[in-house]
């Protein structure tokens, strides 16, 4: 409790990056990517096969995690569902990034009526909590895989837009962009060759964060019964199907929920070590 060290302490101290934590993240995410690729051939049972004649069979020798509400093997469905869960989230995030980046960069570089229209429009969409916006859109369009990708993708694109525009606005006044403009390069060329390479690092971080929010929003919708529809099942839908098993102590609803959590925590551990280096954390 000497004054000097304490005084230094008052100024925020940068902690070293948690490399170990980031590596845990890499292992967990890598594991699930592997399962998404080969899980269906590892699964001991087929997706729809009834392994017990009653619902919520106990975890045991034959079924590692027990059976679900109509007696299907939870472990097999978990492995098989990994592909749909990850692929859907990845496609949606990529879609969100393409839309958000193109519009965000275009808005920043044009800085005329296009910027005003896009920014105000996006601000209006940001006034909705994302799940409420998704619910409204799904009421109108019904739920199907393309609708889910489009709706969740556009919701996440509003967040990408904000970051992309902010990054590009800073770059649009730099000398090298002005030189490119003076040279007569088009907006598309400047976006691709000048802006994008200089924003890759924050965008990569944002991609990780958006990926986790996409998984969470998609599985929340599936959990509410408004996402992936039967007979298909992603992890969120598996939680929904089996939620009544909770009262019987079944692992059927907990296992897929834990799988989602491990995946998102894994991605966030990686992102976190990125962000700490970068120094700023984007908001929710």
């Amino acid at each position, binding site marked *: 409790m000497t*004054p000097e060290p*304490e*005084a230094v*302490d*008052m*100024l*925020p*101290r940068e*902690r070293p990056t948690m490399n170990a934590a980031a590596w845990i993240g890499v292992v967990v995410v890598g594991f699930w990517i592997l399962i998404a690729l080969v899980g269906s051939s590892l699964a001991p049972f087929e997706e729809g096969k009834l392994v017990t004649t009653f619902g919520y069979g106990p975890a045991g020798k034959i079924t590692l995690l027990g059976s679900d509400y109509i007696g299907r093997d939870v472990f097999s469905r978990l492995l098989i569902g990994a592909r749909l869960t990850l692929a859907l989230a990845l496609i949606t995030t990529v879609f969100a990034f393409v839309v958000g980046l193109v519009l965000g960069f275009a808005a920043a570089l044009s800085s005329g009526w296009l910027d005003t229209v896009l920014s105000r429009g996006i*601000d*209006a*969409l940001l*006034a*909705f*909590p*994302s*799940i*409420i916006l998704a*619910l*409204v*859109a*799904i*009421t*109108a*369009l*019904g739920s199907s895989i393309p609708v889910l990708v489009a709706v969740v993708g556009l919701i996440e694109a509003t967040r990408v837009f904000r970051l992309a525009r902010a990054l590009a606005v800073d770059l649009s006044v730099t000398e090298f962009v002005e030189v490119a403009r003076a040279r007569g390069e088009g907006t598309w060329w400047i976006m691709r060759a000048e802006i994008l390479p200089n924003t890759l690092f924050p965008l990569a971080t944002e991609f990780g964060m958006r990926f*986790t929010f996409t998984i*969470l929003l998609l*599985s*929340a919708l599936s*959990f*509410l*019964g*408004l996402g992936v529809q039967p007979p298909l099942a992603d992890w*969120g839908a598996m*939680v929904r199907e089996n*939620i009544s098993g*909770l*009262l*019987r*102590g079944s692992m059927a*609803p*907990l296992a897929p*929920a*834990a799988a*989602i*959590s491990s995946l*998102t*925590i894994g*991605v*966030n*551990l990686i992102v*976190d070590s990125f962000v700490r280096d970068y120094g700023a954390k984007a908001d*929710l």
Partner: protein
Amino acid sequence: MHAIVESASPSKAGQTSLPKVASLLIRRLSLGIVTLWITSVLVFVGTEVLPGDVVELVLGQGATPESVAAIRKSMSLDRPAHTRYFNWLVGALQGDFGRSLAGDVAGTAESGREVAGLIGERLGNSLRLAGMTAAIAVPLSLLIGLLSAMFPGGILDRFVSIAALCAISVPEFFIGSLLVMLFSVMLGWLPAIAYLSDSQTLWETLRAIILPVLTLTFAVLAHMARMTRASLLSVLRSSYIETAVLKGATRWRVVFRHALINAIGPIANVVALNLAYLVGGVVIVESVFAYPGMAKLMVDSVSSRDIPVVQACALIFCAIYVGLNLVADMVAILANPRLRNPK
């Protein structure tokens, strides 16, 4: 520096600068109202204009021409969209959201319940859930945030950092399921289903609501503490704090006497933003516990495509969300000495 200016001449500065702050507040308020109006347009357009024929969606395959015509008339779908929007908005502003489509299948258009009545009882339940969560989570997270900002890199700080990472990663239905597994199934202390009725005693209501409240608290607590910490730390980085530290002020004095006053604005902002985040969390938590709140009503209405109910719920949720963001910004304006005391 700001703290010194403020304590030196608080009343005088307050008087001379009132119009400036007032104009900022009015501008922010009108922006909020415009935003809310735009969300109402989006909700209306999204649910009524996009899907083609709403009536056939509602009635499905078994629609007879008579029932379609009856519902079209009852929903005034024979009128142009802007007239319908205007009527809907005027009604909504007076608390009249039209009638639910549930029970309309026979074509007896007036059989649906008043949406306002349906929502009224549910909104109270949702507000009670969010209110109790806020009452627990806000003071607790402010305390934790404050302590972890005072001792950055300490055990508490590290723990909260990990907890916040988990809390934003883990879906609310997982936290809820784990709590049910622990407290309802294994320990048998609390009910798994949040059943509410008028005949319950206060104790029974509390028992029913405690798991949903705990779930929501877990969802926001660590994150709110983390953001509080960040707000306070950014103030602690200022040079006037360094001056205070160098002149030998104790850690507690620096934080409570010098830093906190300038962090109130950002911290109030953090609180309001996290309460707004609860709006989304409520949707999931009410479904996990079958809690009879407005979010559950909205989800059920989305499944049955009961459009008037969805519109009303979406509008109310957005109003709360926009309102909380508005409060956050207005507190920030009020708490900023630079805006209160312009040169």
